[in-house]
C-alpha cells in the first residue's frame, strides 16, 4: 500500500445529451417486445400457464424501472477524453469500465451509426489496437464532435512512429 491516496479522475468530456434519448428508446423497444410477446401469448393461447401472468407483471415492472433509471445513470458514467498521447474512456452503469489506450498503439479509428443513431445525429467511435481485447469505443457522440475527434486522432496517429504492435 502506498502512502499517497491516488484516485483515477473521470475523463473530461460528457457524451451527447441525446444519448439519453437513444438509450431510453432502445430499452423501451426491448421491453415492449418482451412484454408484448408475453401479453399476446397470454391472450391467444388457451390455458396459458399461470406463471406467465407473474412473469408478465415482473417484466413490466422491471422494464419501466430499467427504462427510467438506466439512461440517466449511463449518462453520468459515460465519459471520454483524448490527450496528446492517450485515449481514455469510462462506460457502463451498475458495472463500470475504464479503458486507456496510448495513441502510439492505435491502428484504426472507425465511426459507426446505427439507424436510431442516424435519426438522432449520433456516432460511435471505435479505436482499435493490435489486441483483440483492445478496441476502445466512445458511444453516442454528437456526429459533428465525432467527426472532429476522428480527424484529430488520425492526425496524431500518423505523426506517431512505430508499427503499433
Amino acid at each position, binding site marked *: 500500500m502506498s502512502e499517497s491516496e491516488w*484516485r483515477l479522475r473521470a475523463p473530461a468530456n460528457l457524451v451527447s445529451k441525446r444519448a439519453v434519448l437513444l438509450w431510453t428508446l432502445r430499452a423501451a423497444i426491448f421491453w415492449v417486445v418482451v412484454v408484448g410477446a408475453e401479453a399476446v401469448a397470454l391472450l391467444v393461447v388457451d390455458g396459458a400457464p399461470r406463471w406467465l401472468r407473474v412473469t408478465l407483471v415482473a417484466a413490466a415492472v422491471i422494464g419501466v424501472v430499467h427504462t427510467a433509471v438506466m439512461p440517466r445513470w449511463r449518462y453520468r458514467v459515460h465519459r471520454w477524453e483524448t490527450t496528446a498521447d492517450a485515449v481514455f474512456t469510462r462506460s457502463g452503469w451498475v458495472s463500470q469500465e475504464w479503458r486507456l489506450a496510448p495513441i502510439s*498503439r492505435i491502428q484504426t479509428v472507425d465511426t459507426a451509426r446505427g439507424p436510431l443513431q442516424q435519426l438522432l445525429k449520433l456516432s460511435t467511435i471505435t479505436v482499435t489496437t493490435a489486441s483483440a481485447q483492445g478496441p476502445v469505443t466512445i458511444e453516442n457522440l454528437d456526429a459533428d464532435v465525432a467527426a472532429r475527434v476522428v480527424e484529430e486522432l488520425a492526425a496524431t496517429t500518423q505523426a506517431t512512429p512505430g508499427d503499433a504492435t
Partner: protein
Amino acid sequence: MIVVRPLNELIGLLPPLAALVFFGNFDTWRVVTSASVVGLIIGYGLLSWLTTKYRITETQVELHKGVVFRQRRSIPRDRIRTVDLTAKLGHRAFGLSAVRVGTGQQERTPGEGTVTLDAVTAAEAERLRQALLRKVAQTEDENDEGVSIARLDKRWYRYAPLTVSGFISIGIVVGFVMNLASELDFRFSEVGAIREIFGWVSHANPLRVVPVAAVFVIVLSVLASLAGYLLQNHDYRLTRQPDGTVRVRRGLLTTRSVSIEEKRLRGAVLHEPLLLRAGKGARVTAVTTGLNKVGGSSLLLPPAPRTEADRVTADVLATNEPPTSATLAQHPARAKVRRIVRAVVPTVALAAILLALAETANWPDWPWITATVLIPVSVALGLDRYRNLGHTLTEDYLVARSGSLDRSTVALRRNGIIGWKITRTLFQRRARVFTLTAITAAGSSGYAVLDVGDDQGLDLADAALPDLIGQFLVRD
C-alpha cells in the same frame, strides 16, 4: 498431398467403419451410405488438391485454394512470427507435413491471421520453416539442432496422472461407444460379461460397489492420461535456434514442431492445476503473437517438475530469475471476503434448491446432503483462491497470479502492454477493489489482475507503464 487429407479423415472414420463391419447387421442401405461417404471424402480431397497452389515470393506468402469458393490469401513475409509444422499419422505415412504460418495479426475470425499449407513434403516443410523465419541472410547449417533448453525426462510421466485429461478422455470414449452402440442397435445386455457386471452393480451393497467403481475409474484414467502424455509429448525437445527462434518439437503419432520468434515472445504462463500443484509440478505456455489457441500450439513445457518449469521459463525469457516465481504482493483482505462469498454462494444456493426439491418434489435426500457437505469445501476453495491472488512488477515483467483449481501465473513483458482496462462491479466498488486488465497483442490478448486494491492497482498500472495512466490520476 493428394491422399493425405482423405486419409486423415478416413483414419478418424475407422472405428465406426470397423464397428459396422464387425457388429453391424449388413443391411445394404448402411453399406451404400458408408461407401458413398468414403467416395465423397476422397473426391473432395482430390478436388482440393487440384485447386490448391502456393507460392513464396521475396515479400509474400501466397495461397490460392477452394473448390466451390475460390480464396486467395497472402501474407507479407516480414509479418511472419511463428511457423508450426504438424504431421498427423496420415501425413507421416507419406513423409509429409502441414505448415501453418502465423502473423502477429489478432484473429477476429478464426484463421484470419494464419496461412496453412497442407501438406508438403517433410523436407520442404523444414526448408520453408527456415526460409520463412529468416529475416536476414544468415549462414545456418541445414541440420542445425540448435541449443537445447529442455528435453523429455522419463520421470516426468509421473505428472501425467495429475491432470484431468485422462478422466476427460475416458468420458469421451464412453460417450462415443454408447453413441455408436445405439447407432448400430447393439445391446450391451446381450453380452454375458457386461450383463453380469450390471447385475452386480445394481444388486450388491453400495458400500462395496462405490469403492470398486472408484478404483476402476481411477486406474483407467491414470492409464489414459499416461497414454495421452506419451502421444502428445513423446520425444519432446525445446531448443533455441540460431535464427532467433525457440522451437518446440513433440509427439508420437502426430508430430509437431512450433517455432516462435523470440523478439515476439511477450512472456510466459505457468499453469498449476490443483493436483499438479500438490505434486509440485507445472506446465508452461508461451505468450506470443502469431499463434492461435487451437491445439495447444503455444505449449513450451508439458507437465514437469516445478523447478524445471522455473528453469525453462527463465531460460526462454532470457532472465536470471524466472518472473513467475517472484514474491507477489497480496491483495487486500476485502478481496478475501469476495473470493469466499463467490465460492460459497453457488454451493449454498444449490443445496437450498436440492433441499426444496427433496421436500416438495419427492427427490431423494442424498443430493442436498452432498451439496451441504460441499459448503466447507467451497470455503476452503475460496480461501485458497484468495491466497493465490497476487501481483508484482519485476524489471521487465508484470506478474499476476489467480485461481485455485486451475492456478495460473502470467508473466507479461511490460513493453508488450498496449493499454489498460479497469472493470468494477457494484460489489467491487463497495469492497474498494477492481480488476485491472493489461491489454496486449499477444496470447489471449488481455491478462487480468483480479480484485486488486484501489490504490494498489493504480500504483501498479502507473509503475508498469509510466506516462500513461499517470496523467489521469489526482491526489485526493
